């Protein structure tokens, strides 16, 4: 099996994985942070494979593959970039605002346990902020 065939097989597998990930993201109202990151990684992974394959394929010998690439590109641009990505970004922005407000309003004397429990909320907030930065970097790449 040639290298290009191996890459085509890999592309089939990865683009199928991407479709499943996108379908799952569409069906859930709020994704966990690890699901968000996995979704973006899969989109970026398949997008780089597409760029690489387009350089090495021609319409005569690889028509089926080019069709599949075209189909996957449509899923990324129409479903992911236009629907899922804005939904995820909005979810992160809203959630960060909500947690920030709640933490800022939560003043007064607290017990050791309350302080340490609240510290976990701050950790979650930091993780959400980092995820938002990551998602925004993806958005910057679309411009």
């Amino acid at each position: 099996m040639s290298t290009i065939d191996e890459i085509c097989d890999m592309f089939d597998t990865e683009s199928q994985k991407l479709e499943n990930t996108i379908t799952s993201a569409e069906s859930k109202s709020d994704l966990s942070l690890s699901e968000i990151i996995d979704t973006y990684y899969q989109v970026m992974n398949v997008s780089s494979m597409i760029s690489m394959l387009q350089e090495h394929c021609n319409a005569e010998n690889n028509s089926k593959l080019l069709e599949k690439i075209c189909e996957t590109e449509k899923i990324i641009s129409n479903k992911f970039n236009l629907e899922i990505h804005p939904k995820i970004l909005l979810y992160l922005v809203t959630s960060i605002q909500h947690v920030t407000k709640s933490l800022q309003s939560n003043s007064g004397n607290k017990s050791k346990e309350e302080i340490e429990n609240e510290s976990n909320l701050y950790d979650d907030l930091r993780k959400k902020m980092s995820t938002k930065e990551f998602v925004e970097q993806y958005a910057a790449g679309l411009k």
Partner: protein
Amino acid sequence: MIEQLAKNLVSIKKEFVKKYDGQSQIQEIIPISKSDMFPIEETHFELLHQFGKNNPIYYNSYEQKILDVPCIVYEGDINKYWLNSIQYDSSHAPFSPTWIMSAYISALFAKEHGYSQIIDIGSGDGRIAYCGKILGMESYSIELDEMLVDLQKLLITTLDFNPYCFDAIQFDYSSLNLTRPLFFIGGLAQMGGLELAMGVLKKITSDSNLWNNAGWAFVGTLSQKYPSDPKNEAGWGSFIENNNLQLIQNLSLPTAWSFNEFDETQYVFAKSL
């Protein structure tokens, strides 16, 4: 003596990390009194503990013997200061304190090298300036974050280390009539420290007398999480070379952010060439 004090502090820190099973965001230790490992004046220990006890960032403390040294463990939380600090566009790095003992040893280094004033820049809760004051030096604490300066104002009732709520890059240092100052620059080179240092340095170079007499302390890291500097010095080598500074010495000391790291924070001391 200073190098040995720093080594001893690192030794008890490493042992404390092994023993610590609490959940606090930040934690540190201060020996209770003078010992062979920490031959420091008793009154200085009392003042160091007062800083810990009066400081609202600490919500719990208890006694623990570490390497046979009786210590007080201080447990704290700085999350609300972090949340506040990220609102400032010009803030260089979020507040994360050095250990009180590390602040004391750094200030002692300044004093033993002939500096008579400490300017703690990006001072957080002002602990380096406070320690300078314990050692009888004139101290000034410059901090941009109003919430942190309000915290400092709670702590100056014991020793006044002159807190200023100001952007250190815009501050008029000539107003302090400095003669032999050491500037502590808060923030790792890779976390906005370089910009802050450059801004302050520019203000000081315009006064040649002050420039010649000034010392500098930069906060550095050996962690591979951060890009290294080609001239090393924990991220400050190129800055030192490019700005006509000369390295005096590096001290390795514990800080809140290096608690779980193998390598301690590097305090890089330099002076004008």
